[in-house]
């Protein structure tokens, strides 16, 4: 599993989008998620699982993912998370 080298942010706080920030965590911390969303009560569990699955599929661990969601569909959330990881993986 890979880990990111630096904090990185992607996306916008705009309708159907999400602002995603990834921060490196200490070794062994795994993937942690902090979700801010007006639909957290309805979809929070699904979104958090999707974020963890996306990070795992991209091959990363020991990362904290903060998502400020503005109604992003699943694909948009995935795209933002992967883009943030890519940006964070550049020394």
């Amino acid at each position, binding site marked *: 599993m890979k880990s990111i080298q630096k904090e990185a942010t992607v996306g916008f706080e705009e309708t159907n989008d999400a602002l995603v920030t990834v921060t490196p965590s200490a070794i062994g911390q795994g993937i942690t998620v902090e979700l801010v969303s007006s639909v957290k009560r309805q979809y929070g569990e699904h979104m958090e699982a999707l974020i963890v699955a996306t990070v795992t599929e991209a091959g990363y661990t020991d990362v904290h993912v903060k998502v400020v969601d503005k109604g992003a569909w699943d694909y948009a959330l995935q*795209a*933002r998370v992967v883009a943030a990881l890519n940006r964070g993986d550049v020394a």
Partner: protein
Amino acid sequence: MNTDAKSRLRRTMMFVPGNSPKMINNADLYGADTIMFDVEDSIFVSQKDAARLMVKYALKAIPFNCETAVRINHVTQTPFGIDDLKAILPSKPDLIRLPKTESVDEVRLVTKMIEEVEQREGFPAGSINIICAIESVRGLYEVRAIAKEPRVVAIALGGEDFIADLRTQRTQRGIEFYHARSEILLAARDAGIQAIDTVYAEVANLEGFRQEVTDIKDMGFDGKSVVHPTQISIVHEIYTPTEKQIAHAVKVLACYKDAVANNKGVLAVDGKMIDGPIVVRAERIVAQARAAGILAEEGYEDAK
């Protein structure tokens, strides 16, 4: 291999910024024949990485009804084009639009990458095709060879860059595009592919837009690039055949079908001899009428 892709109805190709999920989510609602996700000029350099991933995931996730295209960055003149293709091709867009095309080498480079992805992903050969935008004098001088590359199904005029290259400006009468439009159209026809006209950026000027669409349709263009949903219905209206044209076309096709079925050699409709080009024109009119929703599928069968 890609005969259908060369004749598909493309009256409107609507540009959608590739880094805007809100616009992507709504893109299919307006009835454009093709939606063109843009990761080129509408995307800041600092957002290219995010935009190409947004388009990649959108194409995988959303079952678009219309044709999908992606305008990538230039493959040799920018550091982004190849990465765009690597990210986006596995999501199987119908078309890749090459900007500022100036040589067949660019087209061949992209063709090779498409073929590799089609084989690797198990897509049928010919699933992903190419539309080339001509946006410079150099490109225009190469358009005849570019149009004949086997994956290329259409040539588009990229007008804003082209007039910058000419050192002139946009006019309503379109004199600045006179030669380029003619050359592109002829090259496309010579290669048996389509010609798509440039955008009309004055979104609020619907009358000016209507006039320009009428002009380019009369020239022979297959469709127009659009930048706003309000432009779509105008293009489709202008590209919709009249009732009289449809009635005649339906009759021609019905008689042609009857003649083929019964081995009748010579064919006449309303006293006029019918030959190949007339049948092809009738088929195009019927296709346009169906696309406009004013003729049911297989509607001509009972019209004899």
